[in-house]
C-alpha cells in the first residue's frame, strides 16, 4: 500500500490503516522527538501528540510531498512548540535561575575504563552540546545527522529555502565545535 492509499484509508476511518501507519513511522517520530527533547518521557508525550495530529490532519495530506516528510514536519513543529512553551513556563516559574544551561557535566576518565562506557560518555557530551544549540540549528542538525535527510528534505520539513538549510547547518556545526573544544580536559 502506498502513502496516498494509506492516507485515504485513514481518512475513511480505517483503524487498521492508522495502526499500520503507526507501526511504520513510530521509530521515525520517536527518534526525532527524543533527539529534539533529550528526554524519554517528553519524547513519549510528543510522539503521542504527533500521531493524534496525524490522525486528525490526514485529510490535509494531498500527496504532494512524501508522507514521511509530512510526518517529520508535524513532529518538528510539535517539538519546537513544546520547547517554546517549556521555555516560557520556566521563565514564568523562575526555574531558569536554577538551571545550568550549556554547562556540561565533567566526565571523569577514572570511572570509565571500559570502552563502551567511554563511548557513552562521549555521546552524552555531544548530545548535551547539541541540546544547547539554538532550536532551528538543532533541528537542522538532527534531521541531517541522525535522520539522514537530504538538504532538500530538510528544506521541505522546515519549510525554508535550501540556502537557509545550508546556513543553519553551517552555523550549527561551527557553534558545536566551539562547545566541544573545551571538553578536551574530560577525555
Amino acid at each position, binding site marked *: 500500500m502506498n502513502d496516498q492509499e494509506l492516507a485515504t484509508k485513514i481518512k475513511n476511518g480505517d483503524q487498521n490503516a492508522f*495502526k499500520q501507519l*503507526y507501526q511504520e513511522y*513510530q*521509530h*521515525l*517520530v*520517536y*527518534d526525532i522527538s*527524543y*533527539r529534539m527533547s533529550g528526554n524519554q518521557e517528553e*519524547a*513519549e508525550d510528543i*510522539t*503521542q501528540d504527533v*500521531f*493524534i495530529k496525524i*490522525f486528525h490532519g490526514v485529510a490535509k495530506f494531498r500527496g504532494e510531498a512524501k508522507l514521511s516528510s509530512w510526518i517529520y514536519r508535524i513532529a518538528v513543529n510539535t517539538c519546537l512548540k513544546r520547547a517554546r512553551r517549556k521555555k516560557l513556563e520556566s521563565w514564568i516559574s523562575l526555574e531558569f535561575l536554577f538551571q545550568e544551561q550549556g554547562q556540561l557535566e565533567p566526565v571523569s576518565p577514572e570511572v570509565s575504563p571500559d570502552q563502551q562506557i*567511554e*563511548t557513552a560518555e*562521549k*555521546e552524552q*557530551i*555531544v*548530545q548535551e552540546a547539541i541540546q544547547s544549540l539554538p532550536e532551528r540549528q538543532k533541528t537542522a542538525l538532527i534531521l541531517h*545527522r*541522525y535522520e539522514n535527510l537530504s538538504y532538500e528534505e530538510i528544506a521541505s520539513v522546515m519549510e525554508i529555502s535550501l540556502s537557509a538549510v545550508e546556513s543553519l*547547518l*553551517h552555523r550549527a*556545526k*561551527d557553534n*558545536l*565545535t*566551539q562547545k*566541544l*573544544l573545551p*571538553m*578536551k580536559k574530560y*577525555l
Partner: protein
Amino acid sequence: MKHKTIQKKLLRYLDEELSELEKVEVQRHLERCETCRDALQTVESLWIAERPLERKTAPPFLWTRISVQLGAEAEKGIFKGFKEPVRLALRPLVTVVVLLFIFFSGITLGDLMTGSSGDVTEISTERITDNFGMSYFEILPPGSLDASSLALTEKEVGR
C-alpha cells in the same frame, strides 16, 4: 589565519563540508600548528564516537496510549466534529438553550394543567371561592367573624 577561526571550522572539515579554498587553508594551518591539531583530535574523537547507528525505539505501550486517547475523543458525542475551541464555546451555549427550554416548557405545562390561559388572578379567586365557600378578596368576606358581628348588629338595630 587565527587559531579560533580555524578551530571553528573543524567539524565541517571533518564532514568534508568546506569549500576547496577553506579546506586548503585549514590543512596548511594544521600542518604547522600543534594546538589546532590537538583541537582536531578532540573534536574528531567526540564526533566520530557519537555517530549513532540505530534509531531510538518507541516503548510498546505507546500505541495503547494513542488508541485510548482517540477512543476518548470519539466519545465526545455531538461535539466530536468540532475543533477544541469551538467545542468549548458550544458547551455553555447548549446548556443555556437546554435550561431555557426546561423553563418555558414548565410554564406551558403549568398553563395546560390550569386548563385556561386567561387572567391568573381571576382564576385563582374563583377556585378559592369554589373550594372554601367564601371570598378572601372582599373587605369583609362572608362567613368571617367580622361579617357575623355586623349581621348581629344589624338585627339588633332592626329590632
